[in-house]
């Protein structure tokens, strides 16, 4: 699991291996995972369309290409465990079990959205399902995860936190502080680096000499693990092991899920600054495509069954657009001062 994956300039990406049948996931759960991956794919494909069509505004970042990470990781959690997120939060939210209608409503700025139209893409949150919110400030979700792990520890409620963050996020000071404290206090948290090797237009190798990010774990006295971030089962297995360690009171793990950003940084990014011929080969490892092939190759599902799942995802997303655009309401001006303070308190 700690084999070194190719970096962008290795070209062919041959080190990514085929998906193997995981030991403990029955087919039902695998289908569930595939559905979630398709939902993410469809959702964020649609979001791009809607954004370019001016139906959605602000900044929106697509999780397309990273589906294996959120889905693989969240599959290792209980429903009431926590996750923290980044600016690229749609995938995390869906993987943790959110209602797509409420997500789409939020992106449309509607009152029925998860955030009552006040958050949008960058702050999408589904606290009820333990999704503690996307944040637009890179790195700022790190200590939030430390806090939820701390509260689990104090309250003794056994909850685990997964802290998703990008390679870019690993260079924020709070990243270091968070991991050091989580390690020192032996907290039940799993750090999952979504290492797509890019931060907007900046390659990881330009801003960190050691690009094997999992190696940093050594400095904190915790395990560091490298996995193929395009491989949903590999992510699942690594996170599952880390979650088990955490539940057993053995503290945090740092998991680097290495892959490559396939699309632009945000939905309207044309990536003029990037040599796309180098990205091209990595589409072979498209996690949705790979999982599909896996089902066929291992004769686990028939084409028809797969298409059914895909169609279901597509329909859900279509439905969510209808819901958000025609069945929801604009938040009234009277909601402006609502929810700044708890219990309806208003300080003008």
């Amino acid at each position: 699991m700690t084999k070194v994956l190719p970096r962008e300039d290795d070209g062919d990406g041959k080190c990514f291996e085929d998906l193997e049948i995981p030991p403990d996931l029955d087919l039902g759960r695998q289908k569930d995972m595939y559905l979630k991956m398709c939902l993410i794919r469809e959702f964020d494909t649609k979001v791009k369309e809607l954004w370019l069509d001016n139906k959605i505004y602000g900044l929106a970042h697509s999780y397309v290409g990273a589906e294996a990470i959120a889905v693989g990781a969240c599959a290792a959690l209980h429903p009431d465990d926590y996750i923290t997120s980044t600016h690229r939060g749609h995938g995390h939210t869906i993987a943790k079990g959110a209602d797509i209608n409420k997500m789409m409503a939020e992106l449309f700025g509607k009152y029925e959205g998860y955030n009552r139209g006040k958050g949008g893409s960058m702050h999408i949150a589904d606290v009820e399902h333990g999704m503690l919110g996307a944040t637009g400030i890179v790195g700022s979700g790190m200590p939030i995860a430390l806090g939820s792990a701390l509260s689990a520890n104090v309250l003794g409620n056994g909850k685990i936190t997964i802290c998703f963050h990008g390679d870019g996020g690993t260079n924020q000071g709070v990243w270091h502080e968070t991991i050091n404290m989580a390690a020192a206090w032996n907290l039940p948290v799993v750090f999952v680096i979504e290492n797509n090797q890019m931060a907007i237009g900046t390659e990881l190798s330009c801003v960190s000499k050691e690009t094997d990010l999992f190696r940093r774990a050594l400095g904190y006295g915790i395990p560091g693990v490298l996995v193929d971030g395009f491989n949903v089962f590999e992510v699942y297995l690594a996170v599952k092991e880390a979650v088990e360690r955490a539940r057993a009171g053995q503290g945090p793990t740092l998991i680097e899920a290495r892959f490559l950003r396939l699309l632009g940084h945000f939905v309207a990014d044309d990536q003029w600054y990037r040599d796309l011929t180098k990205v091209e080969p990595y589409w072979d490892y498209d996690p949705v495509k790979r999982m599909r092939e896996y089902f066929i190759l291992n004769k686990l599902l028939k084409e028809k069954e797969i298409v059914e799942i895909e169609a279901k995802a597509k329909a859900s997303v279509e439905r969510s657009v209808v819901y958000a655009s025609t069945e929801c309401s604009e938040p009234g001006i009277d909601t402006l001062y609502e929810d700044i303070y708890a219990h309806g308190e208003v300080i003008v």
Partner: protein
Amino acid sequence: MSIKTVREALNDGMREEMRRDPTVILMGCDVAVRGNPFGVTKGLLQEFGPKRVIDTPISEPGFTGAGVGAAATGLRPIVEILYSDWITLAMDQIVNMAAKMRYMFGGKVNVPLVVRAPFGSGGGNAAQHSQSFENWFNHVPGLKVVAPISPYDCKGMLLTAIRDDNPVIFFEHKRAYQIKGEVPDEEYTVPFGKAAIRKEGSDVTIVSYSMMSIKALQAAEELEKEQGIKCEVIDLRSLLPLDYETVMGSLAKTNRIVVCQEANLRGGMAADIVAEIIDRGFDLLDAPPVRVAALNVPMPYNMALENEVIPSVQKIKAAVLKALGDR
């Protein structure tokens, strides 16, 4: 009633609240083993153990943020920034996370976080250990800001802060820990948003808070004795929300007003209060409001210079006379 110091009152407040509510925790540099360098948190580790009284590494951004995350998931963390000058390190977590989380998430979380931030100047601690930044937080919707000074208020407002479901920045004055006063033996709280009138008077209203309210009271007493001037001294205690009802009520009586802060004059809280007073009752004013504040300089080490920078009783008296100037 017992006579307690501010230090004891704050310590009692945390202790009693931690006894009452197992979700209250305390974290910061040296709050546990050492009981905080000012002695404010002494004994809490012994009573509540290291799970709830946590010596952090020197990671202000991270442990403040941990407080936010813990608050969002069921705890009531008290986070200590030993000198409020270093709250600069935690601004992102306070301003962009704690203050906004509830709103950004459509009301789905509460963030019952208390950030205790000893502040104020004096003692030759120089530029990085003497600052007062309350107006920064006053500028951020979603926060509450308080700055009590008497032992009674310190304890009562600390309880209110801990029980409040919103993030509260609790400015305790680091040169006030020895101040003594009466504190009830039974449980009580002091609400936010209610100012205290420390002295009644009809000539000039002095609006103040924290250490400045003590200086204002002294100035008022001297002015009364020396010149028969009757000042009404208001101790705001709570800055956000701020009790404009009491302020305007007093102004309606005196028609003259002095506003005091210990922070640097420019960009400070006193300006905000003056502007609000103008909005709320320009016609009540018989003379322009006068501000008293620190000079616009970084705090120098030399104590003679420092004393020139910190607003003094003398300067408050001069401000009152200025407010009365055309009478």
